[in-house]
């Protein structure tokens, strides 16, 4: 009997230990430990873009966690996100004109809502609203600003189309910007291979506002930065006649390929004439022959 009793006690201990371990895993190492402790009040904030913000993401003031995101929903009838923040009752004196911003922790980390204090004497109340918000900024937009490659022309005034032939368009694609003096004036409407002439026919849609482009201007495929996207740059000529809808730009310069450039650089000293037949000549009078 005593033997049997020790089984029972040992087995009971084992079961208790197992459940204790389960309770430990569930409460100490998981998101349950992160749940709101104590009473909280709810504040609304509306954002144009919440990026990767998730429910239960932290709300921080000066980097200190004061609450969490309770719910995220689309505001009915408007393209803005309504984010409900549950903030701990201990931090009840947040000025009503504080700014709620969606931040990213580190370059690739999770997103959280940061509140920057305003100067108002009034405090935001339960069910109140933080009117001033700053949305999450997509990485692409920030990089675009940084590299200056983004920003297409606003296509308000309509556009006219001209064509240009390139022996090589590189990675130019539909929608790539067309720039003059670095300013976007239109975009690439189509890129097609021309079977008869063995080159690429690119249609450029240029904004109607820019109708003073000489018809002997040259079109070149450039790369923004070292590894940026490619765009069509227009270098104005001197002709008194202007480009019209349906015209073809005669002078073109194809995309430089990094391999060709390196090749040119490497073989520069040893007779530039031979072995360079594959490289694209810088300026091709494509339509002349």
């Amino acid at each position: 009997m005593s033997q049997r009793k020790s089984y029972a006690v040992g087995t009971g201990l084992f079961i208790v230990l197992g459940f204790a371990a389960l309770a430990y895993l569930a409460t100490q190492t998981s998101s349950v430990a992160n749940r709101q402790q104590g009473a909280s009040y709810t504040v609304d904030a509306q954002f144009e873009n919440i990026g990767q913000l998730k429910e239960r993401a932290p709300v921080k003031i000066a980097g200190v966690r004061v609450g969490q995101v309770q719910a995220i929903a689309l505001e009915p009838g408007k393209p803005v996100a309504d984010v409900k923040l549950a903030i701990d009752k201990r931090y009840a004196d947040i000025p009503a004109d504080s700014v709620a911003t969606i931040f990213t922790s580190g370059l690739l980390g999770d997103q959280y809502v940061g509140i920057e204090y305003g100067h108002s004497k009034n405090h935001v109340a339960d069910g109140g609203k933080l009117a001033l918000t700053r949305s999450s900024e997509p990485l692409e937009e920030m990089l675009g600003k940084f590299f200056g490659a983004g920003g297409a022309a606003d296509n308000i005034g309509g556009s006219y189309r001209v064509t240009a032939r390139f022996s090589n368009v590189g990675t130019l694609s539909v929608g790539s910007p067309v720039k003059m003096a670095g300013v976007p004036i239109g975009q690439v409407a189509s890129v097609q291979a021309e079977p008869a002439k063995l080159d690429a026919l690119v249609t450029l849609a240029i904004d109607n506002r820019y109708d003073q482009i000489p018809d002997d201007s040259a079109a070149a495929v450039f790369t923004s930065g070292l590894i940026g996207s490619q765009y069509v740059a227009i270098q104005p000529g001197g002709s008194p006649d202007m480009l019209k809808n349906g015209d073809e730009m005669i002078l073109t310069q194809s995309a430089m390929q990094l391999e060709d450039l390196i090749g040119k650089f490497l073989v520069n000293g040893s007779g530039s004439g031979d072995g360079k037949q594959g490289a694209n000549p810088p300026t091709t009078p494509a339509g002349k022959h």
Partner: protein
Amino acid sequence: MNARIGNDNVVTQALGQIGNCGLFLLQVLAAIPRSLRHGRETVRQLWFTGAMSLTIIMTCGLFVGMVLELQLYHVLSMFGSTSMSGTVVAIATYRELGPVVTALLFAGRAGTAITAEIGLMRATDQIAAMELMAVDPLAYVAAPRFLAGLVAMPLLCCVFCALAVFGGHLVGVSWLGIDNGTFWSNMTATVDVWQDIVSGVIWKSLAFGAVVSLIAVFQGYTAPPTSEGVAYATTRTVVASSIAILALDFVLTAFLM
């Protein structure tokens, strides 16, 4: 009970084994209500299969957590994100390593013992004697062991995971100097109760517990009543359980994640 399988080819034999195993599962399940009269026997089996396995499970859990943390630290230090290593230890253990390693250890520690015990009971005619005394061997021998395995596995797995996290903490925080606060806060921010602990630890280890104890009981119950037969059955328990655990793990991951 079992249709005799002649000297057919390997495929037919394997299929026959699987079929017999499935039929045996139904018989054991049907015997579970009858086995409740022998509750004490179930507790005794829980002691043998569960509580006695604690030592090996705890030791292995500790070392798995420690070595995982050590490896992750060196890789993650290339990206300057060593504070996430505890999170990865926890998630990897809860979702995969905990259930799988516990089940493999359980098959080696408890499964073989079950097979050998039942095989010898069969070889020494104890099972035949029970049948003569009108004691249902399925209800008295097979079902309690099956139930015990089913209950013991999730508990053992929880202990394994807790010790793995502790081992990761030991190496990461005490030895390699990761900040204690970020270690825990990253972990609590990422680990989800339902996704990781319930569908990882609990469901997987329940399924593995059922599979391992079924295979162990089945192999012992159908072992040829010779010493060679028992030895062969014990080996087959380990081999079949290991394959079943790893294959089932893939299927369960595909379904649960």
